[in-house]
Protein backbone atom coordinates (compact mmCIF):
# COMPACT_ATOMS: atom_id res chain seq x y z
CA UNK A 1 0.00 0.00 0.00
CA UNK A 2 2.83 2.36 0.77
CA UNK A 3 4.20 1.95 -2.77
CA UNK A 4 0.80 2.90 -4.13
CA UNK A 5 0.80 5.97 -1.92
CA UNK A 6 4.27 6.87 -3.16
CA UNK A 7 3.17 6.49 -6.77
CA UNK A 8 0.19 8.70 -6.12
CA UNK A 9 2.37 11.34 -4.52
CA UNK A 10 4.66 11.18 -7.54
CA UNK A 11 1.73 11.67 -9.90
CA UNK A 12 0.39 14.59 -7.90
CA UNK A 13 3.80 16.24 -7.68
CA UNK A 14 4.40 15.83 -11.42
CA UNK A 15 0.96 17.27 -12.14
CA UNK A 16 1.72 20.26 -9.93
CA UNK A 17 5.01 20.91 -11.75
CA UNK A 18 3.33 20.52 -15.15
CA UNK A 19 0.61 22.97 -14.31
CA UNK A 20 3.06 25.44 -12.83
CA UNK A 21 5.18 25.30 -15.96
CA UNK A 22 2.09 25.93 -18.07
CA UNK A 23 1.26 28.85 -15.81
CA UNK A 24 4.56 30.46 -16.72
CA UNK A 25 2.76 31.59 -19.84
CA UNK A 26 -0.13 32.95 -17.88
CA UNK A 27 -1.94 34.81 -20.65
CA UNK A 28 -1.64 31.95 -23.06
CA UNK A 29 -2.77 29.53 -20.38
CA UNK A 30 -5.85 31.56 -19.49
CA UNK A 31 -6.73 32.19 -23.12
CA UNK A 32 -6.47 28.49 -23.91
CA UNK A 33 -8.63 27.56 -20.97
CA UNK A 34 -11.29 30.16 -21.62
CA UNK A 35 -11.39 29.44 -25.34
CA UNK A 36 -11.70 25.72 -24.70
CA UNK A 37 -14.73 26.34 -22.52
CA UNK A 38 -16.13 28.62 -25.23
CA UNK A 39 -15.40 25.92 -27.78
CA UNK A 40 -17.41 23.39 -25.77
CA UNK A 41 -20.23 25.84 -25.23
CA UNK A 42 -20.52 26.37 -28.97
CA UNK A 43 -21.13 22.68 -29.46
CA UNK A 44 -23.92 22.89 -26.92
CA UNK A 45 -25.34 25.74 -28.92
CA UNK A 46 -25.36 23.47 -31.95
CA UNK A 47 -27.35 20.86 -30.08
CA UNK A 48 -29.69 23.49 -28.74
CA UNK A 49 -30.43 24.47 -32.35
CA UNK A 50 -31.04 20.82 -33.23
CA UNK A 51 -33.44 20.42 -30.35
CA UNK A 52 -35.38 23.49 -31.43
CA UNK A 53 -36.45 21.34 -34.32
CA UNK A 54 -36.43 17.79 -33.00
CA UNK A 55 -37.73 16.39 -29.71
CA UNK A 56 -35.21 13.67 -29.39
CA UNK A 57 -32.50 11.83 -31.22
CA UNK A 58 -32.77 8.06 -30.98
CA UNK A 59 -34.55 8.51 -27.68
CA UNK A 60 -32.06 11.04 -26.30
CA UNK A 61 -33.36 14.41 -25.16
CA UNK A 62 -31.43 17.65 -24.92
CA UNK A 63 -30.56 17.08 -21.28
CA UNK A 64 -29.14 13.64 -22.02
CA UNK A 65 -27.00 14.96 -24.83
CA UNK A 66 -25.73 17.78 -22.65
CA UNK A 67 -24.80 15.27 -19.99
CA UNK A 68 -23.02 13.20 -22.61
CA UNK A 69 -20.96 16.25 -23.56
CA UNK A 70 -20.23 17.08 -19.95
CA UNK A 71 -18.87 13.61 -19.32
CA UNK A 72 -16.79 13.28 -22.44
CA UNK A 73 -15.33 16.78 -22.01
CA UNK A 74 -14.56 16.07 -18.37
CA UNK A 75 -12.99 12.73 -19.22
CA UNK A 76 -10.78 14.22 -21.93
CA UNK A 77 -9.92 17.03 -19.55
CA UNK A 78 -8.75 14.73 -16.78
CA UNK A 79 -7.04 12.34 -19.15
CA UNK A 80 -4.84 14.86 -20.91
CA UNK A 81 -4.26 17.12 -17.93
CA UNK A 82 -2.72 14.21 -16.06
CA UNK A 83 -1.46 12.03 -18.91
CA UNK A 84 -0.68 14.71 -21.50
CA UNK A 85 2.12 12.75 -23.11
CA UNK A 86 -0.24 9.98 -24.18
CA UNK A 87 -1.04 12.02 -27.28
CA UNK A 88 2.53 11.91 -28.57
CA UNK A 89 3.76 8.62 -27.21
CA UNK A 90 4.37 7.13 -30.66
CA UNK A 91 6.53 10.02 -31.79
CA UNK A 92 8.50 9.76 -28.55
CA UNK A 93 9.09 6.10 -29.34
CA UNK A 94 9.99 6.66 -32.98
CA UNK A 95 12.32 9.54 -32.22
CA UNK A 96 13.95 7.57 -29.44
CA UNK A 97 13.07 10.07 -26.76
CA UNK A 98 12.30 7.52 -24.09
CA UNK A 99 15.97 7.42 -23.05
CA UNK A 100 15.41 10.12 -20.50
CA UNK A 101 12.66 8.19 -18.74
CA UNK A 102 14.52 4.91 -18.90
CA UNK A 103 17.33 6.50 -16.92
CA UNK A 104 15.03 7.41 -14.04
CA UNK A 105 14.21 5.10 -11.13
CA UNK A 106 10.47 5.24 -11.79
CA UNK A 107 7.87 3.18 -13.55
CA UNK A 108 8.52 4.09 -17.21
CA UNK A 109 4.94 3.70 -18.39
CA UNK A 110 3.64 6.03 -15.72
CA UNK A 111 6.53 8.45 -15.87
CA UNK A 112 6.31 8.98 -19.62
CA UNK A 113 2.58 9.49 -19.63
CA UNK A 114 2.38 12.02 -16.83
CA UNK A 115 5.32 14.16 -17.88
CA UNK A 116 3.24 16.68 -19.74
CA UNK A 117 -0.04 18.51 -19.24
CA UNK A 118 -2.02 20.23 -21.94
CA UNK A 119 -3.19 23.62 -20.75
CA UNK A 120 -6.30 23.59 -22.92
CA UNK A 121 -7.64 20.40 -21.41
CA UNK A 122 -8.12 21.98 -18.01
CA UNK A 123 -10.75 24.08 -19.78
CA UNK A 124 -12.48 20.86 -20.83
CA UNK A 125 -12.54 19.63 -17.27
CA UNK A 126 -13.89 22.94 -15.99
CA UNK A 127 -16.60 22.81 -18.62
CA UNK A 128 -17.47 19.20 -17.80
CA UNK A 129 -17.83 19.84 -14.08
CA UNK A 130 -19.65 23.12 -14.68
CA UNK A 131 -22.19 21.34 -16.91
CA UNK A 132 -22.73 18.64 -14.32
CA UNK A 133 -23.40 21.31 -11.72
CA UNK A 134 -25.83 22.99 -14.10
CA UNK A 135 -27.66 19.72 -14.71
CA UNK A 136 -27.70 18.19 -11.23
CA UNK A 137 -27.26 21.20 -8.97
CA UNK A 138 -25.27 20.58 -5.80
CA UNK A 139 -26.00 16.90 -5.72
CA UNK A 140 -23.94 13.82 -4.90
CA UNK A 141 -24.33 13.02 -8.59
CA UNK A 142 -21.75 15.65 -9.45
CA UNK A 143 -19.19 13.82 -7.35
CA UNK A 144 -20.27 10.56 -8.88
CA UNK A 145 -19.84 12.09 -12.33
CA UNK A 146 -16.30 13.17 -11.46
CA UNK A 147 -15.48 9.66 -10.29
CA UNK A 148 -16.84 8.29 -13.57
CA UNK A 149 -14.77 10.78 -15.52
CA UNK A 150 -11.68 9.53 -13.72
CA UNK A 151 -12.45 5.90 -14.45
CA UNK A 152 -13.27 6.73 -18.08
CA UNK A 153 -10.06 8.70 -18.44
CA UNK A 154 -8.10 5.60 -17.44
CA UNK A 155 -9.87 3.63 -20.15
CA UNK A 156 -9.18 6.37 -22.68
CA UNK A 157 -5.50 6.57 -21.78
CA UNK A 158 -4.94 2.83 -21.76
CA UNK A 159 -6.61 2.43 -25.16
CA UNK A 160 -4.54 5.27 -26.57
CA UNK A 161 -1.25 3.94 -25.21
CA UNK A 162 -1.92 0.49 -26.61
CA UNK A 163 -2.31 1.93 -30.08
CA UNK A 164 0.65 4.28 -29.69
CA UNK A 165 2.79 1.38 -28.45
CA UNK A 166 2.37 -0.25 -31.86
CA UNK A 167 5.24 2.04 -32.84
CA UNK A 168 7.55 -0.35 -30.99
CA UNK A 169 6.52 -3.18 -33.26
CA UNK A 170 5.77 -1.70 -36.66
CA UNK A 171 7.89 1.39 -36.95
CA UNK A 172 5.86 4.52 -37.13
CA UNK A 173 2.29 4.17 -35.88
CA UNK A 174 1.68 7.91 -35.51
CA UNK A 175 -0.92 8.03 -38.26
CA UNK A 176 -2.80 5.02 -36.97
CA UNK A 177 -2.72 6.46 -33.48
CA UNK A 178 -4.03 9.78 -34.75
CA UNK A 179 -6.88 8.12 -36.61
CA UNK A 180 -7.69 6.06 -33.56
CA UNK A 181 -7.75 9.08 -31.26
CA UNK A 182 -9.96 11.03 -33.62
CA UNK A 183 -12.32 8.06 -33.92
CA UNK A 184 -12.55 7.76 -30.15
CA UNK A 185 -13.34 11.43 -29.83
CA UNK A 186 -15.88 11.47 -32.65
CA UNK A 187 -17.76 8.44 -31.39
CA UNK A 188 -17.80 9.59 -27.78
CA UNK A 189 -19.62 12.81 -28.71
CA UNK A 190 -22.78 11.16 -30.00
CA UNK A 191 -25.35 8.87 -28.41
CA UNK A 192 -24.43 5.32 -29.17
CA UNK A 193 -28.02 4.32 -29.89
CA UNK A 194 -27.96 6.04 -33.29
CA UNK A 195 -25.57 3.40 -34.57
CA UNK A 196 -26.32 -0.06 -35.85
CA UNK A 197 -25.69 -3.07 -33.63
CA UNK A 198 -22.44 -4.07 -35.29
CA UNK A 199 -21.03 -0.56 -34.85
CA UNK A 200 -22.11 -0.59 -31.22
CA UNK A 201 -20.27 -3.85 -30.70
CA UNK A 202 -17.19 -2.15 -32.11
CA UNK A 203 -17.61 0.75 -29.69
CA UNK A 204 -17.48 -1.59 -26.72
CA UNK A 205 -14.37 -3.36 -27.97
CA UNK A 206 -11.90 -2.17 -30.59
CA UNK A 207 -12.76 1.53 -30.27
CA UNK A 208 -14.06 1.58 -26.68
CA UNK A 209 -15.72 4.98 -27.01
CA UNK A 210 -18.88 3.68 -25.35
CA UNK A 211 -17.06 3.70 -22.03
CA UNK A 212 -16.02 7.32 -22.38
CA UNK A 213 -19.47 8.83 -22.41
CA UNK A 214 -22.33 6.42 -22.98
CA UNK A 215 -21.72 4.03 -20.09
CA UNK A 216 -21.12 6.74 -17.46
CA UNK A 217 -24.18 8.66 -18.63
CA UNK A 218 -26.31 5.54 -18.32
CA UNK A 219 -24.89 4.96 -14.85
CA UNK A 220 -25.76 8.48 -13.82
CA UNK A 221 -29.26 8.13 -15.14
CA UNK A 222 -29.82 4.78 -13.56
CA UNK A 223 -27.14 3.24 -11.40
CA UNK A 224 -26.60 -0.48 -11.70
CA UNK A 225 -23.92 -2.48 -9.95
CA UNK A 226 -23.53 -4.81 -12.87
CA UNK A 227 -22.72 -2.03 -15.33
CA UNK A 228 -20.54 -0.25 -12.81
CA UNK A 229 -18.50 -3.40 -12.20
CA UNK A 230 -18.08 -3.84 -15.93
CA UNK A 231 -16.99 -0.20 -16.20
CA UNK A 232 -14.39 -0.60 -13.44
CA UNK A 233 -13.32 -3.97 -14.77
CA UNK A 234 -12.65 -2.54 -18.22
CA UNK A 235 -10.52 0.23 -16.68
CA UNK A 236 -8.44 -2.24 -14.66
CA UNK A 237 -8.09 -4.61 -17.60
CA UNK A 238 -7.22 -1.71 -19.89
CA UNK A 239 -4.40 -0.52 -17.69
CA UNK A 240 -3.10 -4.04 -17.26
CA UNK A 241 -3.14 -4.64 -21.01
CA UNK A 242 -1.68 -1.26 -21.81
CA UNK A 243 1.25 -1.84 -19.46
CA UNK A 244 1.84 -5.30 -20.85
CA UNK A 245 1.90 -4.11 -24.44
CA UNK A 246 4.07 -1.13 -23.53
CA UNK A 247 6.65 -3.17 -21.65
CA UNK A 248 6.67 -5.90 -24.30
CA UNK A 249 7.41 -3.17 -26.82
CA UNK A 250 10.02 -1.53 -24.64
CA UNK A 251 12.22 -4.59 -25.05
CA UNK A 252 12.42 -3.77 -28.73
CA UNK A 253 13.04 -0.07 -28.14
CA UNK A 254 15.88 1.22 -30.29
CA UNK A 255 16.85 4.38 -28.46
CA UNK A 256 17.63 7.74 -29.98
CA UNK A 257 19.62 7.26 -33.14
CA UNK A 258 17.03 8.89 -35.33
CA UNK A 259 17.71 12.47 -36.26
CA UNK A 260 14.60 14.58 -36.06
CA UNK A 261 13.68 15.36 -39.65
CA UNK A 262 13.38 18.95 -40.78
CA UNK A 263 9.92 19.46 -42.12
Amino acid at each position, binding site marked *: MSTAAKQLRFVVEQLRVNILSNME*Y*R*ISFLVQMVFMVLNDVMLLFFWWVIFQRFDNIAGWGQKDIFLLYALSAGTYGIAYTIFGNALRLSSLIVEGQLDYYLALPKDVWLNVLISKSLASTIGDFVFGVGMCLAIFGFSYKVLLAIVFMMVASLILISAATIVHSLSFFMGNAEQIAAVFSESMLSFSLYPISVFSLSVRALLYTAIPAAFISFVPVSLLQEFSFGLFSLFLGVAVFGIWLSRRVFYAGLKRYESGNLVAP*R*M
Partner: protein
Amino acid sequence: MAAITVSNLRKTFQVRTAAQGRIKGLFNPIFTEVEAVKGATFSVERGEMVAFIGPNGAGKSTTIKMLTGILHPTAGEAQVLGLTPWVERQKLAMKIGSVFGQKSQLWFHLPPKDTFRLLSYIYELDESVFKARLGKLVEVFELDELLHIPVRKLSLGQRMRCEIAACLLHKPEVLFFDEPTIGLDVVAKRKIRELIASINKEDGVTVFLTSHDTGDIETLCKRVMVINHGEVILDSSPQLLRREFLRMKTIGVRLEEEIESFIHPGVTVLKHKGPGLKLRVDTAVTSVDDVYAALRQHSRLADIYISDPTLDEVIEEIYQATGSITLGGGGYR
Protein backbone atom coordinates in the same frame (compact mmCIF):
# COMPACT_ATOMS: atom_id res chain seq x y z
CA MET B 1 32.39 48.64 -59.91
CA ALA B 2 30.84 48.13 -56.50
CA ALA B 3 28.30 45.38 -56.04
CA ILE B 4 27.45 46.43 -52.50
CA THR B 5 27.88 49.81 -50.91
CA VAL B 6 26.84 50.49 -47.37
CA SER B 7 27.15 53.72 -45.53
CA ASN B 8 26.27 54.45 -41.96
CA LEU B 9 23.74 51.67 -41.83
CA ARG B 10 22.05 51.51 -38.46
CA LYS B 11 19.47 49.27 -36.92
CA THR B 12 17.98 49.53 -33.48
CA PHE B 13 15.51 47.01 -32.13
CA GLN B 14 12.94 47.69 -29.53
CA VAL B 15 13.03 44.90 -27.04
CA ARG B 16 10.33 44.44 -24.49
CA THR B 17 11.78 44.14 -21.03
CA ALA B 18 10.81 40.66 -19.96
CA ALA B 19 11.37 41.22 -16.26
CA GLN B 20 7.99 42.92 -15.94
CA GLY B 21 5.01 40.91 -14.81
CA ARG B 22 3.24 39.27 -17.71
CA ILE B 23 -0.11 40.86 -17.15
CA LYS B 24 1.32 44.26 -16.40
CA GLY B 25 3.70 43.96 -19.32
CA LEU B 26 0.83 43.28 -21.64
CA PHE B 27 -0.86 46.59 -21.09
CA ASN B 28 2.04 48.79 -20.27
CA PRO B 29 5.10 47.39 -21.92
CA ILE B 30 8.47 48.97 -21.34
CA PHE B 31 10.78 48.94 -24.31
CA THR B 32 14.51 49.07 -24.31
CA GLU B 33 16.39 50.06 -27.41
CA VAL B 34 19.12 47.73 -28.50
CA GLU B 35 21.55 48.78 -31.19
CA ALA B 36 22.22 45.71 -33.30
CA VAL B 37 24.02 47.58 -36.04
CA LYS B 38 25.47 50.98 -35.47
CA GLY B 39 26.79 52.72 -38.48
CA ALA B 40 28.17 50.01 -40.73
CA THR B 41 30.13 51.42 -43.67
CA PHE B 42 31.87 49.34 -46.31
CA SER B 43 31.74 48.40 -49.94
CA VAL B 44 32.25 45.21 -51.88
CA GLU B 45 33.46 45.13 -55.46
CA ARG B 46 31.89 42.96 -58.10
CA GLY B 47 33.44 39.52 -58.20
CA GLU B 48 34.85 39.83 -54.72
CA MET B 49 34.53 37.11 -52.15
CA VAL B 50 34.15 38.56 -48.69
CA ALA B 51 33.81 36.94 -45.29
CA PHE B 52 31.86 38.62 -42.56
CA ILE B 53 32.85 37.36 -39.16
CA GLY B 54 32.02 38.09 -35.58
CA PRO B 55 30.49 36.34 -32.61
CA ASN B 56 26.77 35.75 -32.21
CA GLY B 57 24.97 39.01 -31.78
CA ALA B 58 27.65 40.99 -33.61
CA GLY B 59 25.07 42.07 -36.16
CA LYS B 60 26.03 39.74 -39.02
CA SER B 61 22.58 38.40 -39.69
CA THR B 62 20.92 41.74 -39.17
CA THR B 63 23.25 43.27 -41.75
CA ILE B 64 22.56 40.47 -44.25
CA LYS B 65 18.85 40.85 -43.66
CA MET B 66 19.05 44.54 -44.45
CA LEU B 67 21.12 43.86 -47.57
CA THR B 68 18.55 41.35 -48.83
CA GLY B 69 15.64 43.67 -48.09
CA ILE B 70 14.11 41.71 -45.25
CA LEU B 71 14.67 44.40 -42.66
CA HIS B 72 14.32 48.12 -42.92
CA PRO B 73 17.26 49.98 -41.42
CA THR B 74 16.70 52.61 -38.79
CA ALA B 75 19.01 54.95 -40.64
CA GLY B 76 21.69 54.95 -43.28
CA GLU B 77 21.94 53.81 -46.85
CA ALA B 78 22.81 50.70 -48.77
CA GLN B 79 22.85 49.72 -52.41
CA VAL B 80 23.08 46.23 -53.76
CA LEU B 81 23.60 46.09 -57.53
CA GLY B 82 22.44 49.67 -57.66
CA LEU B 83 19.16 48.95 -55.88
CA THR B 84 18.10 49.93 -52.39
CA PRO B 85 17.17 46.51 -50.98
CA TRP B 86 14.26 47.44 -48.73
CA VAL B 87 12.71 49.67 -51.37
CA GLU B 88 13.10 47.44 -54.40
CA ARG B 89 13.09 44.05 -52.71
CA GLN B 90 11.31 42.06 -55.40
CA LYS B 91 13.42 43.49 -58.17
CA LEU B 92 16.57 42.74 -56.21
CA ALA B 93 15.35 39.23 -55.35
CA MET B 94 15.68 38.29 -59.03
CA LYS B 95 19.37 39.18 -59.00
CA ILE B 96 20.59 37.74 -55.75
CA GLY B 97 20.73 34.26 -54.27
CA SER B 98 21.03 33.14 -50.70
CA VAL B 99 21.71 30.04 -48.70
CA PHE B 100 21.02 29.97 -45.02
CA GLY B 101 22.81 26.94 -43.64
CA GLN B 102 20.16 26.17 -41.10
CA LYS B 103 17.13 26.87 -43.26
CA SER B 104 16.32 24.55 -46.12
CA GLN B 105 14.66 25.75 -49.28
CA LEU B 106 14.27 22.25 -50.70
CA TRP B 107 10.96 20.45 -50.38
CA PHE B 108 11.56 17.77 -47.82
CA HIS B 109 9.37 15.00 -49.21
CA LEU B 110 10.15 15.55 -52.87
CA PRO B 111 13.27 14.95 -54.97
CA PRO B 112 15.40 18.07 -55.61
CA LYS B 113 14.44 18.22 -59.27
CA ASP B 114 10.93 19.26 -58.24
CA THR B 115 12.27 22.16 -56.20
CA PHE B 116 14.52 23.16 -59.12
CA ARG B 117 11.57 23.11 -61.47
CA LEU B 118 9.51 25.17 -59.03
CA LEU B 119 12.31 27.70 -58.65
CA SER B 120 12.50 28.05 -62.41
CA TYR B 121 8.90 29.27 -62.30
CA ILE B 122 9.46 31.43 -59.25
CA TYR B 123 12.36 33.17 -60.92
CA GLU B 124 10.48 33.20 -64.23
CA LEU B 125 13.15 31.44 -66.27
CA ASP B 126 12.49 30.37 -69.83
CA GLU B 127 12.38 26.65 -70.34
CA SER B 128 15.48 26.50 -72.52
CA VAL B 129 17.48 28.73 -70.18
CA PHE B 130 16.45 26.61 -67.22
CA LYS B 131 17.38 23.35 -68.92
CA ALA B 132 20.80 24.59 -69.96
CA ARG B 133 21.50 26.04 -66.56
CA LEU B 134 20.35 22.94 -64.69
CA GLY B 135 22.45 20.76 -66.97
CA LYS B 136 25.51 22.78 -66.13
CA LEU B 137 24.82 22.79 -62.40
CA VAL B 138 24.19 19.06 -62.38
CA GLU B 139 27.53 18.57 -64.03
CA VAL B 140 29.52 20.89 -61.78
CA PHE B 141 27.82 19.84 -58.56
CA GLU B 142 27.65 16.15 -59.53
CA LEU B 143 23.95 15.97 -58.83
CA ASP B 144 23.08 13.33 -61.40
CA GLU B 145 22.20 10.66 -58.91
CA LEU B 146 20.78 12.97 -56.28
CA LEU B 147 18.26 14.64 -58.53
CA HIS B 148 15.61 11.96 -58.21
CA ILE B 149 15.99 11.03 -54.55
CA PRO B 150 13.57 12.59 -52.05
CA VAL B 151 15.42 15.21 -50.02
CA ARG B 152 14.69 13.44 -46.74
CA LYS B 153 16.93 10.61 -47.88
CA LEU B 154 19.94 12.77 -48.76
CA SER B 155 22.90 13.24 -46.45
CA LEU B 156 23.53 16.71 -45.10
CA GLY B 157 26.45 17.24 -47.48
CA GLN B 158 24.46 16.09 -50.50
CA ARG B 159 21.60 18.30 -49.44
CA MET B 160 23.88 21.29 -49.11
CA ARG B 161 25.16 20.76 -52.64
CA CYS B 162 21.56 20.80 -53.82
CA GLU B 163 20.80 23.90 -51.72
CA ILE B 164 23.65 25.81 -53.32
CA ALA B 165 22.77 24.62 -56.81
CA ALA B 166 19.18 25.73 -56.14
CA CYS B 167 20.22 29.27 -55.34
CA LEU B 168 22.31 29.48 -58.50
CA LEU B 169 19.59 28.52 -60.96
CA HIS B 170 18.63 32.08 -61.77
CA LYS B 171 22.24 33.19 -62.23
CA PRO B 172 22.37 35.59 -59.34
CA GLU B 173 25.01 38.30 -59.43
CA VAL B 174 25.45 38.43 -55.68
CA LEU B 175 25.30 35.47 -53.33
CA PHE B 176 24.72 35.60 -49.60
CA PHE B 177 25.82 32.56 -47.65
CA ASP B 178 25.02 32.36 -43.97
CA GLU B 179 27.05 29.55 -42.39
CA PRO B 180 27.16 27.35 -45.50
CA THR B 181 29.27 24.56 -43.99
CA ILE B 182 27.62 24.30 -40.60
CA GLY B 183 27.28 20.72 -39.42
CA LEU B 184 29.17 19.18 -42.35
CA ASP B 185 32.00 16.67 -42.09
CA VAL B 186 35.50 17.47 -43.31
CA VAL B 187 35.10 15.95 -46.76
CA ALA B 188 31.77 17.59 -47.42
CA LYS B 189 33.13 20.91 -46.18
CA ARG B 190 35.99 20.78 -48.64
CA LYS B 191 33.62 19.92 -51.46
CA ILE B 192 31.33 22.84 -50.65
CA ARG B 193 34.27 25.23 -50.41
CA GLU B 194 35.57 24.12 -53.81
CA LEU B 195 32.16 24.69 -55.31
CA ILE B 196 31.78 28.14 -53.83
CA ALA B 197 35.25 29.04 -55.07
CA SER B 198 34.46 27.82 -58.56
CA ILE B 199 31.20 29.77 -58.75
CA ASN B 200 33.06 32.90 -57.78
CA LYS B 201 35.84 32.31 -60.24
CA GLU B 202 33.95 31.12 -63.30
CA ASP B 203 30.83 33.23 -63.19
CA GLY B 204 32.38 36.19 -61.43
CA VAL B 205 29.65 36.10 -58.82
CA THR B 206 30.12 38.32 -55.81
CA VAL B 207 30.06 36.20 -52.68
CA PHE B 208 29.26 37.54 -49.25
CA LEU B 209 29.52 34.92 -46.55
CA THR B 210 29.34 34.62 -42.82
CA SER B 211 30.90 31.74 -41.02
CA HIS B 212 32.16 30.53 -37.71
CA ASP B 213 34.63 28.28 -39.43
CA THR B 214 38.13 29.70 -39.87
CA GLY B 215 38.69 27.12 -42.57
CA ASP B 216 35.90 28.60 -44.72
CA ILE B 217 37.41 32.01 -44.43
CA GLU B 218 41.03 31.09 -44.96
CA THR B 219 40.46 28.88 -47.98
CA LEU B 220 37.83 31.01 -49.65
CA CYS B 221 38.21 34.69 -49.04
CA LYS B 222 40.75 37.27 -49.93
CA ARG B 223 39.04 39.73 -47.69
CA VAL B 224 37.70 39.48 -44.17
CA MET B 225 35.61 41.96 -42.27
CA VAL B 226 35.39 41.59 -38.53
CA ILE B 227 32.36 43.26 -37.11
CA ASN B 228 30.95 44.13 -33.76
CA HIS B 229 27.54 45.74 -33.40
CA GLY B 230 27.56 45.93 -37.16
CA GLU B 231 30.55 48.19 -37.07
CA VAL B 232 33.40 47.02 -39.22
CA ILE B 233 36.30 47.03 -36.80
CA LEU B 234 38.75 45.33 -39.08
CA ASP B 235 38.83 45.03 -42.84
CA SER B 236 41.74 42.95 -43.97
CA SER B 237 42.95 39.81 -45.72
CA PRO B 238 43.09 36.42 -43.97
CA GLN B 239 46.85 36.48 -44.41
CA LEU B 240 47.10 39.81 -42.68
CA LEU B 241 44.67 38.68 -40.06
CA ARG B 242 46.88 35.74 -39.42
CA ARG B 243 50.03 37.80 -39.33
CA GLU B 244 48.55 40.48 -37.16
CA PHE B 245 46.36 38.55 -34.90
CA LEU B 246 47.19 34.90 -35.28
CA ARG B 247 50.71 35.63 -34.13
CA MET B 248 49.58 34.51 -30.70
CA LYS B 249 50.29 30.92 -29.77
CA THR B 250 49.08 29.00 -26.81
CA ILE B 251 51.65 26.76 -25.13
CA GLY B 252 50.71 24.21 -22.53
CA VAL B 253 53.43 22.40 -20.59
CA ARG B 254 53.76 20.03 -17.71
CA LEU B 255 57.12 20.36 -15.97
CA GLU B 256 58.86 17.63 -14.09
CA GLU B 257 59.62 20.02 -11.26
CA GLU B 258 57.26 22.68 -10.02
CA ILE B 259 58.35 26.30 -10.35
CA GLU B 260 57.36 29.38 -8.37
CA SER B 261 56.61 31.60 -11.31
CA PHE B 262 57.50 32.05 -14.93
CA ILE B 263 58.33 35.47 -16.31
CA HIS B 264 59.37 36.08 -19.88
CA PRO B 265 58.87 39.03 -22.24
CA GLY B 266 55.88 38.58 -24.56
CA VAL B 267 54.42 35.78 -22.46
CA THR B 268 51.24 35.91 -20.45
CA VAL B 269 50.59 33.14 -17.96
CA LEU B 270 47.02 32.05 -18.45
CA LYS B 271 47.00 29.25 -15.93
CA HIS B 272 49.52 27.99 -13.41
CA LYS B 273 48.70 25.05 -11.25
CA GLY B 274 51.45 22.96 -9.72
CA PRO B 275 53.68 21.68 -12.50
CA GLY B 276 51.14 22.63 -15.22
CA LEU B 277 51.38 25.92 -17.10
CA LYS B 278 49.31 27.46 -19.86
CA LEU B 279 50.99 30.36 -21.61
CA ARG B 280 50.06 32.83 -24.32
CA VAL B 281 53.01 33.75 -26.43
CA ASP B 282 53.19 36.84 -28.62
CA THR B 283 55.46 35.70 -31.43
CA ALA B 284 56.10 39.29 -32.46
CA VAL B 285 57.96 39.83 -29.19
CA THR B 286 59.50 36.46 -28.60
CA SER B 287 59.65 33.10 -30.35
CA VAL B 288 58.26 29.75 -29.37
CA ASP B 289 61.80 28.47 -29.35
CA ASP B 290 62.93 31.11 -26.81
CA VAL B 291 60.04 30.26 -24.53
CA TYR B 292 60.86 26.59 -24.79
CA ALA B 293 64.51 27.28 -23.93
CA ALA B 294 63.52 29.45 -20.97
CA LEU B 295 61.28 26.71 -19.63
CA ARG B 296 64.00 24.10 -20.06
CA GLN B 297 66.27 26.16 -17.84
CA HIS B 298 63.88 25.55 -14.98
CA SER B 299 63.06 21.95 -15.50
CA ARG B 300 62.77 19.10 -17.92
CA LEU B 301 59.41 18.94 -19.63
CA ALA B 302 57.05 16.02 -19.13
CA ASP B 303 54.62 17.15 -21.81
CA ILE B 304 54.09 20.06 -24.18
CA TYR B 305 51.55 21.24 -26.77
CA ILE B 306 51.44 24.32 -28.95
CA SER B 307 48.27 25.56 -30.59
CA ASP B 308 46.84 28.41 -32.62
CA PRO B 309 44.21 30.50 -30.94
CA THR B 310 40.65 29.76 -31.97
CA LEU B 311 38.83 32.21 -34.19
CA ASP B 312 36.89 33.39 -31.20
CA GLU B 313 40.10 34.14 -29.38
CA VAL B 314 41.40 36.03 -32.41
CA ILE B 315 38.24 38.06 -32.56
CA GLU B 316 38.46 38.77 -28.88
CA GLU B 317 42.02 39.89 -29.44
CA ILE B 318 40.86 42.20 -32.20
CA TYR B 319 38.11 43.58 -30.05
CA GLN B 320 40.59 44.33 -27.32
CA ALA B 321 43.05 45.84 -29.75
CA THR B 322 40.44 48.14 -31.23
CA GLY B 323 39.11 49.12 -27.85
CA SER B 324 35.73 47.64 -28.52
CA ILE B 325 34.42 46.22 -25.33
CA THR B 326 31.25 44.19 -25.18
CA LEU B 327 31.24 40.82 -26.81
CA GLY B 328 28.09 39.20 -28.02
CA GLY B 329 24.75 40.13 -26.62
CA GLY B 330 21.38 39.05 -27.83
CA GLY B 331 21.80 37.41 -31.15
CA TYR B 332 19.14 39.18 -33.12
CA ARG B 333 18.66 36.75 -35.95
